[in-house]
């Protein structure tokens, strides 16, 4: 098994699936000769040509909307929006078309499409190259939302997403595109959408996170290990549907939980997780569920480091629930 980073894994997974299924095609800005601005589609244009690897005009509405039409027609488009921040010119196509065609047609039409996008801060990208808008997708009935944090999960979930018969938003942690490497099986495999991963079992506190926030969480977990604090670490991976069962099981057993996500604080995805926890297993809580999040400011260029949930902020929150 080759050790591989996330972005290379994406390109290889797309290639593998395109070989198997000729209805899969890739579209987006610069996905052709350029191989994508992050090289996530590198090599595909040369291999599959302009009919299956389509450089689009500079319009996210065209990308997303055309993907809906292609999918309804019978293709399996994998569309790319270069940055999650740029999904908004195509947002209507996502929420009014992609998310709703199966429901509103009573199942006659559906949109087996994947919408890939790089997300997350910490890359000196300022307002428009750093955001994590997953809450907006998750709150839109009809969309599935994945946000893996490792190469292996990326492969398994991307494969599942491509084969899924519903529109799937596939968010990619851009600052970890090249920094995280692991061995990734060469053969084709799927990870079930909707299942969390218990990265590490533990008894003192449950740490819940996903996607681009996982790097800081892993750093914090390492320090906690040195402090002999036993952490149960859950990587949600899938945000819609999300694995409430796994979360409630861990939290009910441990009684203390810290939730981490770098998106803005108010209505951060982890607010939903927190609300479900207190609604369903209030009595097993030994301490308040604490959220460690980004801030309610537009993403600030100058404060790239400070905006993100730092290991230090995570540690403080853990200490707080332990001391409670």
């Amino acid at each position, binding site marked *: 098994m080759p050790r591989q980073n996330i972005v290379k894994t994406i390109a290889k997974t797309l290639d593998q699936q395109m070989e198997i299924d000729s209805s899969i095609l890739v579209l987006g800005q610069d996905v052709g000769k350029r191989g994508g601005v992050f090289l996530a589609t590198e090599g595909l244009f040369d291999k599959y040509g302009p009919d299956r690897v389509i450089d689009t005009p500079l319009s996210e509405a*065209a990308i997303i*909307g*055309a993907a*809906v*039409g292609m999918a*309804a*027609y019978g293709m399996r488009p994998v569309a790319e929006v270069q940055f999650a921040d740029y999904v908004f010119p195509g947002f209507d196509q996502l929420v009014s078309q992609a998310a709703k065609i199966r429901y509103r047609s009573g199942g*006659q039409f559906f949109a087996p499409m994947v919408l890939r996008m790089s997300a997350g801060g910490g890359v000196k990208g300022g307002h428009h190259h750093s955001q994590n808008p997953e809450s907006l997708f998750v709150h839109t009935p009809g969309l599935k939302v994945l946000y893996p944090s490792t190469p292996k999960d990326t492969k398994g979930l991307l494969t599942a997403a491509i084969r899924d018969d519903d529109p799937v938003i596939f968010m990619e942690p851009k600052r970890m595109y090249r920094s995280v490497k692991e061995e990734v099986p060469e053969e084709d495999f799927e990870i079930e959408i909707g299942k969390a991963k218990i990265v590490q079992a533990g008894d003192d506190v449950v740490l819940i996170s996903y996607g681009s926030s996982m790097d800081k969480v892993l750093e914090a977990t390492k320090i906690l290990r040195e402090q002999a604090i036993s952490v149960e670490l859950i990587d949600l991976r899938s945000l819609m549907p999300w694995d409430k069962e796994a979360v409630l099981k861990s939290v009910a057993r441990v009684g203390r939980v810290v939730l981490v996500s770098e998106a803005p604080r108010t209505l951060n995805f982890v607010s939903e997780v927190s609300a479900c926890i207190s609604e369903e297993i209030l009595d097993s809580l030994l301490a308040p569920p604490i959220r460690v999040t980004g801030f309610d400011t537009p993403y600030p260029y100058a404060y790239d480091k400070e905006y993100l949930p730092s290991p230090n902020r995570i540690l403080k929150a853990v200490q707080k629930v332990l001391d409670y």
Partner: protein
Amino acid sequence: MIKDKYNFEVFSKKPIKLMSDSGEWLADFELDLSDKQLKEFYYDMLFGRLLDERFGQLHRLGKVSFYAPSSGHEAAQIAIAKAIDWGNDWVFPYYRDNALLYSSGVPIKDIMAQMLGTRLDPAKARQMPSHPSSKKLNMFTAASGIASHIPAAAGAAIAAKIRNKGEAVITTSGEGATSEGDYHAGINFAGAQGAPIVFIVQNNGLAISVPYHKQSAAENTSLKAHAYGMPGYYLDGMDILACYYLMKDLLERARAGLGPALVEMKVYRYGPHSPADDDMRYRSKEEVDAWRKKDPLLRMQKFLAKRKLWTKKQDIKMREEIELILDKAINEAEAEGFAPLEWMFDDVFKDKPAHLLEQQKMLLED
């Protein structure tokens, strides 16, 4: 048809006509439609008109919560329907396509079931009335959001181009729709890809109350084709023959891989925008009456009468027949009652995730 028959003028200053207001054939090529076809054109327009009126009645009876009056749009819509190769081509319609919908071959019972929101609606009563769909006829599920179907139509056309099986895509909208960013996004992509698609604008001069001159400074919407490197045609949308021949030509061209086109059909809507609309706030009765004089059914009657294909008496009989068909369709559509609550959580996704099963349980227990 392509090239060898008639050269429709691209970007014409005046609307293209093949039939004068008094029903004379104006073109310098020979009409090649059979009497049967010509009578069918008229019959379908009449059906569309009566269907529209019936929707009005159903609304007044409180049976239908909404509909989009289409009277005045019939020539355009039936011409489009007749040029489409149903089941082979793909169609992305909009809410005002009542006559087009009928002429497509969607069973009238299905149309009524959708309007009434009954159990027999193939779309399971999930949408407001006047939002058609038909998987069988490749008719995409209409949405309320203006122009939001245009990029999807472009996508289907690009897919059709890739698959290369000689399918064309047709999409319709009002002229207001052309102002939306999504319209631009879709038509521009289709243009850049040379996809087999015809964009049809039924320009009735009004987007609810907003007159065309506040909508755009382009003299007419066919001119917008310049922006997308495709031909633009400006048609008298009350001339069913002009609309039909041009559509036929453009769809053949599209199927043959000769690329997209944009067509404006100039029409008028006699009714209010919807039953909730009070159109006398923004236009006069005189304006409506003046347009009614150019009625496409009237013009076709004159055209047919000259050929001894139409009499007042036959017309009355046809109307009676159509009303009976409508009565029957309504009865059939209502036979099995309304859509049941059990369907509410289906089709959000292919399968129901845990949270939807939970919510369904919560609701059904309530």
